[in-house]
């Protein structure tokens, strides 16, 4: 080997924010997951358009729990954004607070959704509509659960003092997923709760 030179440019080493390959990987995962929801909602609209009225069979579902649920989820995204900003500036307490708040808000969403599920007069196998309702909201709920698990693991790792202003790719990557869960809920919410009211 002949050593020619030391490069004139200094490069970052290893995972740092968007330098982490995982950041790109997560974006690709979100793209394919978003497509999955697009196909779910396509199925909803396809079956709705081929069903005799009224659709939904029992009228548009009530907004009483769905609107608070949506707000709770959006708030959970905001708190997480705030927490991520904290660690970018080296404020670990802010990340911990953001993670805790987002976890609580996520759990609140699941409780609200659980109450709504329990109050439905139909089950998964009652009708086409009920199959769609429980499958699609169930898919979303599963994503919320995964998101909560990500937040919990990030909280654990923050507890181990793994992250600071230089190294926090795992946080940045996990947060993308959490925001995705919120955004995709808005699409689900619009489809099930708003679209029937527009006809």
């Amino acid at each position, binding site marked *: *080997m002949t050593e020619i030179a030391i490069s004139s440019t200094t490069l970052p*080493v*290893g995972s740092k924010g968007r*330098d982490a390959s995982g950041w790109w990987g997560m974006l690709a995962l979100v793209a394919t997951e978003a497509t999955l929801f697009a196909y779910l909602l396509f199925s909803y609209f396809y079956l709705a358009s*081929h069903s005799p009225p009224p659709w939904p069979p029992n009228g548009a579902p009530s907004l009483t729990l769905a609107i608070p649920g949506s707000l709770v989820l959006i708030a959970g995204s905001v708190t997480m954004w705030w927490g991520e900003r904290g660690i970018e500036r080296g404020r670990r307490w802010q990340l911990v607070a953001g993670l805790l708040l987002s976890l609580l808000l996520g759990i609140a969403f699941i409780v609200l959704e659980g109450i709504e599920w329990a109050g439905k007069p139909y089950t998964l196998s009652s009708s086409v509509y009920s199959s769609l309702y429980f499958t699609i909201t169930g898919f979303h709920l599963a994503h919320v659960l995964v998101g909560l698990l990500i937040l919990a693991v990030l909280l654990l790792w923050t507890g181990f003092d793994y992250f600071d202003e230089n*190294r926090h790719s795992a946080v940045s990557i996990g947060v993308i997923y959490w925001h995705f869960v919120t955004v995709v809920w808005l699409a689900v919410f619009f489809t099930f709760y708003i679209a029937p009211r527009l006809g």
Partner: protein
Amino acid sequence: MTRTETHRAPVIAQATDASPSSDTLRKNWEGPGGWRGWLSTVDHKEIGKRYLLTAFVFLLIGGLEAAVMRAQLATPDGHLLSAEQYAQLFTMHGVTMIFLYALPVLSGFSNYLWPLLLGSRDMAFPRLNAFSYWVFLFAGIFLYASFVMGKAPDDGWFNYVPYASREFNPGPNIDVYALGMVLLGVSTTVGSINFIVTLFRTRAPGMSINRVPILVWGTLTASVGNLFAVPAVSLAFLMLWMDRQLGTHFFDVSAGGQPLLWQHLFWMFGHPWVYAIVLPAMGIVSDGLPTFCRRPLVGYTAVALATVTTMVLGFGVWAHHMFATGLPVMSLSYFSASSMVIVIPSAVAVFAWIATIWTGRPVFTTAFLYFSSFVLLFVIGGVSGFMTASVPVDLELTHTYFVVAHLHYVLIGINVFPVVGGIYYWFPKITGRMMSERLGKWSFWIMFIGFNVGFFPMHILGLAGMPRRVYTYPSGLGWGSWNMVATLGSYLFAIGIAMFLVNVWISLKRGKAAGRNPWGAPSLEWSTSSPPPVYNFAVIPNVASRYPLWEGYMDDDEDTGGSTIHEGLLLDHGRETIGTTMLDAEPAVILKMPGDTYTPLLLALALTLLFVGLLAQAWWAVGAGVLLTLLATITWLWPQRKLSQIER
């Protein structure tokens, strides 16, 4: 404790495999030997070879299934197989060839070649790469699990409801298919993500997006397509399984469900998938032809854009598989027109290949024969596809052997021929040995003649009204003699494949030593040893043109570059490679690469346990599968100091 380094000015060195610096690299990149190494490796070359080998095993299985079917159909009133046996064989033939051979074999090429083509030391996600192979293997075994019990999937690979509904098919056949496909979808998806991020992140400095080989364009396009297409089929199969086992009503007419929803979801996936399993193969040809024509590819930009355009259009043509289902006339017109438009990018590529051969000085190697004959077969398959894009013609031809002829010209012509040609081309790189040209040319001509004798008559049978998917047919319809010809031709084709495999076997042991670049080829993989060392490149090359190894031989000014092959970034502080910017490939970050690990295998096993549990409806196994999947994932993602994911 010291902090991990956050910045470094990397060393630039001159080195080859023989340099002392390469010993450090070898130590960094070599995994444990023996069965431990075998189960834990994340080396893209090992994984690529496994993909190729496994896909070829599935090709042989699918081929044997076809051979039995052709024996049944050789004469009228054949009764070698019962209708049920035939249904299982032709379903598994389709499933095997389309899902377990056609894409995985291309993933094999791309896994093996990408980092070598791109001047990198591994894929962006080496562990994910291992995981995608293991899941592919387990999903393949899963899909065959019920075959041995005589309960294989039996409603065709397209699996239309209501045939596939529980009411009409109560056995485990369809459940195996449904869950197996969801599991396989996981493998395809993570594999695609890996290719996409690898392209965007790990090209050698200077390899701007307009300098990557066409194979890379093909696999990238296929991967992006998969990202958007695979969810449709995974969802369709999951919904079908839920209809069958959990009592939902998505496809259940009596409760207001829609069987056509299945066809929409299936073909929204299915048609882009067709392009996913041909575009990388076309890329193999676009990269192979220039080597043997001794000139750059004509119309590089046009071919790259045609590749992408084909896939984009491919998402808007799915209903041409459904012309006979009673769709509204408006949508028939749209889908017919959009299907015909696909001819344009395809023709762009065809003319580019013809022009490359025409204006080059072809060297008639075996690989060249496969690549150039592919162009002819592509045109034949393309024309028959163009014919069926027309609604009135399709209404005559759908459900006949014409379609069988078309899809075999497409899949064998555009996938198998480039793949076999690709093996002849890259075998010296993979093994360090040349394949026999003499036996190779024999195997080519026998395959080529056998294929055309076997499959061209199916056009005629289709025009004569022979329906597809029939397990036998009565005499007196005039189909017997052409069927006999088709059977004999396809057996000849099989003999050609067998000769190719014999050639592989013999050449592995007795082939001539290949050296670095036996074909005088232009791309980076030929600049390193054959087989390449575990770290691929002693230094990361700098790329200044599309054909870095041809610089100085070409008179085209813009392509004469100034690439440096044996001088570049050394990056030897552990497993490292360079991360570059997305379009211009300027160095942006030093990437720390993971070492060998069992986690991908464990995660794949956990996920498979989950699916076996779902199939058996053993809910404890499902629970255990979920739990183990989560544990394996968390272990995998646990931040490591070695990967510079944590600072202290």
